């Protein structure tokens, strides 16, 4: 049997393949709490929280092409908003999450304003400045934030009356599901944004700003709002981090977090929809494993070398690598038009517009980008 196998779009095999993927993911998500131990589940929740932040960063840096070295700041604003509101002022967790996201959106838009004027490396520096500012602000206003000694006691209790979530193990499961839902919502927001009119505007702005502006894309509006939404998603991740870990220190939102988020995004596959989730899991669990292998600074060396190696081995990230691997095995070909359809203006199968594999055909880490994109990125 010759590879790749060809599958007709819309055929029974294609539909069951797609349905199978969705069912597989649902099955995995639902069974995970029963398959792993409590501490492992709480680690998985941690990785999922990281994934939310990476999804946010990916919207800005992957899809919109604006490098951010300050996303830890938005994560931190979300985390500390939840921390301060719930511990010091006794608000509900949900209220504080909404407030944190709103605050992140506003700050994101404000940071996005200079991003209209500066580009490339200068933008990276502006965001770096924001990212470095936040920890020192947290230390300075220590009567509010607890400063270097940290902020403690954030929890998110399951609604009363649901016996399923009782106890420590139940609490872990509850947070796991909350995080899964939050991740799904974030992905849905990014998906809806990027597969429509806004998404095309964002991609065009990334690849050729001049062309996009000439075509009537409102550059200022799109750039700042995308920045704001990306920041709000990172803030959501921060809020969940606060209630999941229960401890916040300035170090948790330092530059190291930004680096982890960036590495996760690129390893997973920047500008892809499901890459960030992969990348976040790698970033979360690889240090756990390398420190299992060996203690101390040598695990840092392994981690760094791994980052460099993966850039060379998988330039499109895991998402890009898996997609091209899959394409060698199975390809989905469009249904040939039947006799009656030929005359209609739209004979394109629906599949082209909503297939993620088709959408990410051009990864941002393309070693030889088109000349136009080259100019635009400088």
């Amino acid at each position, binding site marked *: 049997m010759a590879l790749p196998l060809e599958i007709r779009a819309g055929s029974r095999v294609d539909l069951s393949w797609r349905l199978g993927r969705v069912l597989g993911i649902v099955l995995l998500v639902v069974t995970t709490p029963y398959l792993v131990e409590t501490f492992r589940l709480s680690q998985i929740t941690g990785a999922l929280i990281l994934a939310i932040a990476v999804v946010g960063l990916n919207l800005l840096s992957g899809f919109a092409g604006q490098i951010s070295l300050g996303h830890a700041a938005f994560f931190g604003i979300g985390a500390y908003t939840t921390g301060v509101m719930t511990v010091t002022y006794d608000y509900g967790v949900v209220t504080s999450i909404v407030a944190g996201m709103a605050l992140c959106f506003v700050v994101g838009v404000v940071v996005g304003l200079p991003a209209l004027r500066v580009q490339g490396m*200068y933008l990276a520096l502006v965001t770096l400045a924001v990212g470095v500012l936040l920890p020192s602000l947290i230390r300075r206003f220590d009567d509010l934030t607890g400063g270097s000694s940290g902020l403690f006691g954030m929890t998110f209790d399951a609604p009363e009356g649901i016996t399923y979530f009782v106890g420590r193990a139940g609490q872990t499961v509850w947070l796991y599901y909350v995080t899964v839902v939050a991740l799904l919502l974030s992905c849905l927001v990014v998906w809806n944004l990027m597969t429509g009119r806004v998404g095309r505007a964002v991609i065009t702005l990334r690849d050729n700003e001049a*062309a996009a502006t000439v075509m009537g894309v409102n550059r200022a509006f799109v750039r700042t709002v995308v920045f704001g939404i990306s920041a709000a998603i990172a803030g959501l991740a921060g809020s969940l981090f606060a209630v999941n870990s229960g401890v916040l220190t300035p170090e948790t939102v330092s530059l190291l977090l930004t680096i982890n988020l960036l590495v996760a995004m690129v390893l997973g596959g920047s500008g892809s929809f499901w890459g960030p989730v992969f990348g976040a899991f790698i970033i979360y669990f690889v240090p756990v494993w390398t420190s299992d292998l060996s203690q101390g*600074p040598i695990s840092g060396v392994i981690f*760094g070398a791994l980052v460099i190696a993966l850039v060379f081995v998988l330039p499109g990230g895991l998402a890009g690598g898996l997609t091209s691997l899959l394409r060698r095995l199975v390809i989905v070909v469009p249904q040939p038009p039947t006799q009656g359809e030929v005359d209609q203006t739209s004979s394109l199968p629906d599949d082209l517009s909503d297939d993620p594999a088709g959408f990410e055909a051009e990864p941002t880490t393309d070693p030889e980008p088109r000349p136009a994109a080259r100019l635009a990125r400088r």
Partner: protein
Amino acid sequence: MDLLIARIVDGFNNGVVYGFLALALVCVYRGTGHLNLAQGEMAMFSAFIAYALHAVGFPVVLAILGAVAIGFIAGGVVERVLIRPLGHGADYSILLVTIGLFLVLNAGAGVIWGGDPLTFPAAVPSAPDDYISFFGTRLRYQQLLILAVLLVVMTALYLLFKYTRLGLAMRVTAGNPDSARLLGMRVNQINSLGWALAAAVGALVGGLISPSTTLTTGMMFNFLIYAAAAATLGGFDSPGGAVLAGIVLGVLENLIGSYISWVGSDLKQAVALVILLGVLMVRPTGLFGTKKVERV
């Protein structure tokens, strides 16, 4: 008045280091048009190499020069092996590789030399009374040496970029690698040279400041942030601008930090970064950078 001068001199001395490391960033930018996040760690690692050379018996000055030479070669090798294969437009990949390099060097120095701070001797006499009195402020010999070396390096780089064929080639290469290649320039070698120069400058900084900071794996991290701010303020393609911006940052930061009690020492760094944000809002290419005009 004496206190004011002391504070200005303090800030100035910090600023000299910011500007020095910023020079290294400028060299890389001249070469490949990128920000090397691992620049500080490369400098730190070079300082440890100088320490190792000194430990096997080289005099301090030779140890530092040896580290500079090793840094020069290593910088070129890093460009050749890790940066060039990624191609010119791969901004993210290069950023990631520098992050990876950052992690490897930082953790690697810890593996080799341990986590405890080491002391590195100064290149000039630095007993407690080895200083020049300046309006009641002590200017230590080592600080004067750093300033002198900085001025020499800055002038050399300025002359190199501005008046030599090589410098012209570097400017063209950073600005438009495709055209440079078409004009017959050896773009790859020029890029390597940029990285090599940067690493050498970094090694010099590392060897010169480690007597006062002590040798630790984290010694360069804060400096890198300031240096990046200084390079941005000065405009990434101007060595003089980067040094001047570094010094201005150092002095302003110290003055604001010590005279405005609300700022204090916690927010000193924040002051530098707010200055950076403010300048970039008004002049997106920094104070002395050349505006890039793009044909659509």
